[in-house]
Structures are given as structure tokens and as C-alpha cells.
């Protein structure tokens, strides 16, 4: 993770003077088939995680931890946080599937997908690595960056939370960021 720490500069990426900009505009589709953009989340903190539904392991665990973290937040803070799950596998993750899947973990979690180009643009904005990994019998997995991004109410990047963080830590980090 040392490499990632060097890359990411909290405090908003739009500052002149270097530092990699994390986050940015995206235009994706939610479970109801409606377009959702980054602007729809202005005024709230975003807890963003990229993954896919065919992921057996780290994605369900992280989504479960995100949902548990939301449960731990005081009501007012909870209302200020939008957990977002963006697929890296738009070929299999249809709007209905990603929407239902995210909600199965916690009612607030918004699952987003889109065209290959729209998803690629979101991945690029967050500097998410995602690549198809062929498996036997025509199956494939997606190798992907596995980390949570915290974006502020102004849309600016605040920091990251490791995917292994327990719900209590996730909740505390969100509160520390001002949720």
C-alpha cells in the first residue's frame, strides 16, 4: 500500500502544485436505470468502493463492513454519508443486478454501473486498476483496486480507508472527516 499512499494527497485534488487528483465527474446508471452523476451527491460525503458481483470474497466482505459502519454512525452523521458501490464489471453487472446486490447489504448503498466507457471513465477518475482475469471454463474474475474512497460534500477527495478496516474504524474515519 506504500505506493498508493504516495499517490494520494488528501485535501482535494484540485489544488495547483502537483498531487494526483482522486475522484471527479462520473455519469453512471443506478438499479432503476436512472443516470446518476457525482453532482447528485454534492452536500453529502461519499464512501466509494469499486468491485463486482461475481466477486466471492473481498467485495461482499467490504460491502458488509460499509453497511455495518453506517449502522454505527449517529443518525445525523448517517444522513450525511452516501455509500456507493461502482462496478468494474459492467458486462455482467446490469443496473438491476448491481442495484439489488448493493441494497442487499444495506438499504443506503447505491450500486452503479454503465456502459464500458462510462465505467472506464469513473475508474480513471478514481485511479482504480481493473482488469479481466480469465478463469477456467469461460469464467473470469476482475482484478481490481480494493480500497474505499471518502469524498467530501464539495466533491473533493478526503482520503482512503483500507478494505480490511473493520466497521468501527470506518465509522470513526467518517466522523473524523466531518460526517
Amino acid at each position, binding site marked *: 500500500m506504500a505506493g498508493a499512499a504516495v499517490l494520494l494527497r488528501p485535501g482535494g485534488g484540485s489544488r495547483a502544485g502537483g498531487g494526483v487528483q482522486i475522484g471527479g465527474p462520473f455519469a453512471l446508471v443506478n438499479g432503476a436505470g436512472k443516470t446518476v452523476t457525482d453532482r447528485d451527491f454534492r452536500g453529502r460525503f461519499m464512501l466509494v468502493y469499486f468491485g463486482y458481483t461475481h466477486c466471492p470474497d473481498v467485495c461482499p466482505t467490504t460491502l458488509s463492513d460499509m453497511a455495518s459502519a453506517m449502522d454505527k454512525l449517529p443518525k445525523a452523521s448517517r444522513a450525511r454519508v452516501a455509500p456507493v458501490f461502482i462496478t468494474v464489471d459492467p458486462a455482467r453487472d446490469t443496473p438491476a443486478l448491481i442495484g439489488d446486490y448493493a441494497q442487499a447489504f444495506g438499504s443506503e448503498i447505491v450500486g452503479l454501473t454503465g456502459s464500458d466507457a462510462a465505467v472506464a471513465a469513473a475508474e480513471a477518475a478514481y485511479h482504480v486498476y481493473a482488469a479481466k482475469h480469465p*478463469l477456467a471454463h469461460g469464467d473470469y474474475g476482475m482484478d*481490481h*483496486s480494493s480500497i474505499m474512497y471518502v469524498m467530501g460534500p464539495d466533491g473533493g477527495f478526503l482520503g482512503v480507508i483500507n478494505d480490511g478496516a473493520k466497521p468501527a474504524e470506518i465509522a470513526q474515519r467518517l466522523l473524523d472527516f466531518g460526517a
Partner: protein
Amino acid sequence: MRAVVGVFWLASTALAHAAPAVAVSDGWARATLPHQDGGVACLTLRSASGDILTGVDSPAAGMVMLHQTTQKNGVSAMEDIDSLALPAGKAVALAPGGTHLMLMDMKHALKPGDTLRLSLHFSKSGDLDVSVPVLPVGATGPQK
């Protein structure tokens, strides 16, 4: 007396060639959505004398594969593995963060409260049928 001793000797060598059954514990499967492509099952295996898991079948899936999750430099990935060695006396857990069973070509969704039947194939001890509970999609481990 000699004849009886002879019979016991034959019986004990026959038993020595059959490896003891693998002990299975902490099994569970994650619930799936109807339109979801794959399912996952986890369990812990322990062979007293050592064995190798060479394959798995399930009536709920067209195919069950052995996968290993890796995490390196912040990137999560999944690999096929052909078999899983069970060193003698050691509990080997297929669990989140490590290896798991991937169910493909699901015949039906797995609902919380269902039971998933698995047929485990071992090189030394042969076939073993087990049933594991289906837990909610947000479950992180077996129910104790």
C-alpha cells in the same frame, strides 16, 4: 488361536489402506440474487492422515471451482487452483480472504435459510457429501 490372529492381521491391513474421512466444519454459503452469476461456499477441512481435495460438485450448480483470492499492492485478484492439499492433522479453511468454492451455472438462487449440498472429492478418502447452510449475503463467516 493362530487362525483368529491371522484374520485380525488381514483386517487391520485392509483398514490401514482406507484413509479416514475428512472432517468438515464451519461450512456456509452466501445467499445469491436470482440474476447473479456465481455463488460462493466456504468450509474448513481437516484430515487426520493427510489428503487432497481434488474437486467438488453440487446439485445447485453446473460446476464448482476451487479459487484463491490474493491481495497484492492494493489489488484484489482471483485464481483457479487445481487442488487443495490437506496436511495431516491441519485444519485448512476455505474462507473469505483465502480459498473458496465458486459455484458456476447456478441452477437456482440461494436463499438465506436454504441448505446447499456439496459433494467433495478427495484423492485418498474418496467422496464425501456435506450440507452447508445458506447465510444472508452480508454474512462474514459461519454462524457459531
